[in-house]
């Protein structure tokens, strides 16, 4: 398991205690330790190299549908950038309709990307430290529809503001299909990593999701598993 310790980072806005959600007050142990399976780290390390390694500036992690392992891969890619290249990384939760990053690590749900897009918070205020050199930007609270907010984020280059404070942005994007603003969010990235859950996502849906993208995404196959018994794998050299 890769583990990085939390460090003190830029001062940030503390939400009012009475409106802080229960999840945010829960155990803080996740903040102290980012646990990622070793195999996933190794694969993301190789993938990161193929995508440009220390030269990546902005990488969007997306998927065709939900539940394909997008958020885990995004976190792993962020940790790789931090651990391997010593870069300051911002893990941005762009899944405005179903944010999970901040909640999953016991961080504040707002202010976040939505507030930054509305100019209600500064870049420094929305960057929450998860560990040393690894910052998280939560999705924030929506004032308008997710599609409208995403359009504003892309149009105003909100991510560009964050780039002044970090070396690389890893975005946990919404899925491309399902009626969400996934396709709109993809316009903000020149590098896209499409996570596909092996044996689950139909090819037709993947093609449908990628045919309108303006950049050709790279693909990371998640959750692969061979059903061949061990003796047969040895026999076939797999």
């Amino acid at each position, binding site marked *: 398991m890769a583990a990085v310790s939390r460090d003190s980072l830029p001062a940030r806005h503390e939400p009012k205690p009475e409106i802080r959600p229960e999840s945010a007050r829960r155990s803080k142990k996740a903040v102290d330790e980012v646990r990622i*399976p070793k*195999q*996933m780290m190794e*694969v*993301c390390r*190789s*993938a990161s190299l*193929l*995508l440009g390694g220390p030269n990546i500036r902005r990488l969007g992690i997306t998927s065709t549908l939900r539940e394909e*392992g997008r958020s885990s*891969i995004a976190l792993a890619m962020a940790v790789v950038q931090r651990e391997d290249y010593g870069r300051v990384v911002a893990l941005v939760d762009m899944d405005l309709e179903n944010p999970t990053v901040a909640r999953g690590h016991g961080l504040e749900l707002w202010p976040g990307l939505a507030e930054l897009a509305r100019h209600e918070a500064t870049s420094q205020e929305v960057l929450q430290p998860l560990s040393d050199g690894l910052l998280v930007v939560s999705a924030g609270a929506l004032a308008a529809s997710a599609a409208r907010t995403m359009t504003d984020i892309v149009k105003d280059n909100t991510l560009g503001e964050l780039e002044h404070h970090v070396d690389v942005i890893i975005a946990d994007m919404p899925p491309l299909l399902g009626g969400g603003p996934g396709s709109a969010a993809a316009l903000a990235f020149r590098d896209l*990593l*499409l996570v*596909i859950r*092996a*044996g*689950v*996502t*139909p*090819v*037709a849906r*993947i*093609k449908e999701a*990628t045919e309108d993208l303006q950049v*050709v*995404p*790279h*693909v*990371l*196959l*998640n*959750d*692969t*598993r*061979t*059903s*061949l*018994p061990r003796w*047969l794998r040895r026999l*076939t050299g*797999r």
Partner: protein
Amino acid sequence: MLRLLETFFRHRLLLLGPVALVIAGSIGWVVIQPPAYDSSVRMWVERQTLVPDPNSNPYLSPAQEQAAVLTELLSTKYFDSKVGKRSRLADSIRTGAAGSQDGMMTRVTQALARALGRAGSPAELSSSQVDDQVAAIISSRTIVIPTGPEVITLTFRAGSSDLAARVAQAIADQYLEETLANQRVQADAAVAFYTSQMKQSQADLSVADKAVDDYLLANPGQRGANAIPDARLVQLRRDDDAAHQRLQTVQDKLDQARLNRVALDQVGVNGLRVLDRAEAPTSPSSIRKVALEATGVGLVLATLIVVVGVLVLTWMDSTIRRPQEVEDILDLRPVGSVPRVG
């Protein structure tokens, strides 16, 4: 190939479930089979020397030849219905007494149909239906094997030992009768043909004789022993000799045909005779054959289920499972694959 194997192991329970059912069904089928009795008749067959058979194939042994003929006959309703009448199998079917020879499933089905009022009683069967059933039973339960160059073994399987013996013997008797009747018909036809030829030849000879006599009467100079015959007389005498020869040839053939016909009335002359008559077996036959059949059918069915199942499941699987498929199917660049954790 590997994709098919992966499909099989991924859905092994789904695929092996029906296979287990088929195996259980095969075992059940063997278990519920009623006891069966085999009765055999052995027949001696040899090439006919006294009455030659024009259809005889010199490259086959007499047993092979006759076994093939008998098997052909067994597949005809004409022959089977005669056997049915001879063995009283038809009567048994008509009165329902032959039910014991049916399989358990047939009996259960018939009983259910009768209980639901959807089938008539056996007594209501028409003669055509009875003949159909007789033909189905005889053709499916009779085995004819040439057990030597000149011995045929004919085996019939039935639900009762008595019926098995009766039908087996009836098949043999009917076959002998059919063969003999066929040869007799041919011999009768030959006799009739050569008799008519004989009459014609005799008439031709009479005409030729008369022509010679008339010519000599008209030409007395040609009668002398030392007279040199003229061309006309020579021609007439040649015609007369030819008529004599033809008559003799036809006479020989007619004699041979009559001999054949008479010979066919003697026992064994047609080259066929029963060596061992059918006897009622004292114990049911082994279930090995049924078990082997059930195993064979079960294996074929199980293989079919697995092969078709794997092909269908593979064809229906429209997902990506390997990085290579990302390139081949999606034309996108894979940068890694994360194995399932846990």
